[in-house]
């Protein structure tokens, strides 16, 4: 029984078809890699799952419950968290307050300020941002912001984590750190992850399975080693071979 099932999801914006008919599923505990060129529809898919965008047709099931049309905050409280491709920290709040908000609203806890702060610090420690706890989120570097984004997401106690191009804009060293971070998070928490990435190395390092989206449709679905050898993927991604 899948954790997340996407069946026949399609989305058109005006005359532009962003997603054709997408079927995929995520098993409990697995990390699914999602790859595709720009404009393939990956962020749209995330937007639909997370509740920001209404699909033109199709449905999304989470734990056998349809979540199509639910507002993003309901989706979050059901156990799906997401990060954004272009990070959206609460710039005017401190790093710790960013996490506190996620704890306060996204998790089941209703703690007083002291316990809330402690929990926030624990989450920050997980992503290596404890030192920046009191700094305004606006002052962080991109790499730190990305980690804050992840911290906020995991603070909501999700069962499913949607990571949208979390490597984008990071240099190779920072990228490696991020891969490490995600690996650590997977070890510590019982999470399923859908990982949208361009950086193929990260995808193959983290994913149990990879799905390839091309012009709004899934064209490949399989193990990383298979996908990387697939002819369509090779011509779309690595140039004609």
């Amino acid at each position, binding site marked *: 029984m899948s954790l997340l099932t996407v069946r026949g999801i399609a989305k058109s914006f005006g005359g532009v078809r962003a997603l054709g008919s997408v079927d995929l599923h995520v098993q409990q505990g697995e990390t699914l890699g999602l790859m595709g060129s720009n404009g393939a529809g990956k962020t749209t898919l995330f937007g639909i799952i997370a*509740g*920001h965008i209404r699909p033109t047709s199709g449905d999304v099931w989470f734990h056998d419950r349809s979540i199509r049309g639910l507002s993003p*905050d309901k989706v979050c409280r059901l156990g799906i968290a997401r990060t954004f491709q272009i990070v*959206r920290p609460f710039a*005017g*709040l401190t790093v710790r307050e960013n996490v506190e908000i996620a704890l306060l609203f996204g998790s089941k806890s209703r703690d007083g300020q002291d316990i809330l702060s402690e929990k926030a610090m624990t989450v920050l420690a997980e992503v290596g941002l404890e030192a920046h706890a009191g700094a305004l989120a606006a002052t962080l570097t991109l790499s730190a912001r990305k980690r804050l984004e992840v911290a906020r997401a995991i603070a*909501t106690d999700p069962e499913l984590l949607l990571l949208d191009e979390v490597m984008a804009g990071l240099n190779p060293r920072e990228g490696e750190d991020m891969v490490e971070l995600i690996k650590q998070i997977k070890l510590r928490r019982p999470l399923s992850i859908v990982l949208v990435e361009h950086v193929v190395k990260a995808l193959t390092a983290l994913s149990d399975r990879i799905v390839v989206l091309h012009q709004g449709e899934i064209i490949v679905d399989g193990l990383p080693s298979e996908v990387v050898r697939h002819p369509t993927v090779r011509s779309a991604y690595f140039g004609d071979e």
Partner: protein
Amino acid sequence: MTSVFSLAKMRFVWFLFAGVLLIAQVPSILGSYWTLIALNLMMWVAMTQSWTLFSGMTGYISLGHVVFYGVGAYVVASTFNSIPLWLAVPMGGIAAALLALVVSLPVLRVRGPYFVILTFGLAELVKFSILNLETVSGNSSRLLFGTPSVEILLYCMIGLVVFATLTTLIVTHSRFGRGLTVIREDEVAAATVGVPVLRYKIIAFTVSAIVPGMAGGLMALKSTYFEVLQVFNPIISFTVVTMAIIGGSGDVRGPFLGAVFLVLLSELFWTTAPQFYMILVGLFLILFVIFAPNGIAAFLDKLQISRRSG
């Protein structure tokens, strides 16, 4: 965990309550002219404080706040001879809140500048609708005979100010208030981490309508006269927004600072050159939006910090 800000704020609030008690003495000490000014001042504080509760906290700037004021005035004026005032005035507040609730669902889905002009348009639409209603029922204006004394109205208005200020204080320190603040920061991200964005906006919007609704009723009683175009005047919305920006829309002190500032200004200029006063108000709005968007309150905070470190 107390910071410099909460200490200063608590001190300010104690000052305020002391000040409010002082103002309550005005009728007996200073006479009717000053009582009217005090009433006016309290009205502006109440209106601006209630505006801050929604617009200040969520960042959804409403240019239609006067619509709640007008609705409250209309309720009181139209039921003047049939319903006791102690019932009619709160009813005005409830009617305003109902209006807010009813329009909130469609209206609060609109973002940014479109929301701003939408609120303005909505207020005008309600104005002309009620105007038509009054014309059709044969009323060009209504006269109210036997209204309560200005002193009593002042005490009621002080009550509204206390209510509005306490509400804002409680909200800013609550989970609800924190949710509103991040809605202002980034609504989409807030929803993603579980903040019930639409519900919170609706609640804040609806609650923010109660005080202006009652204030409108009280002011109708003060002027003993109700005329639609006067009571739904967009200048009132504009003044409230300006007071909030000048005073600072971030916290409870702002409305007091802004209201005092503009009321003082109007006392200087209104009788001699009302247009000049309005020009000054417009200028101040522009200057503050550009140079000091967080108002005098933020400026005072900065002074505090530099004094402590200096």
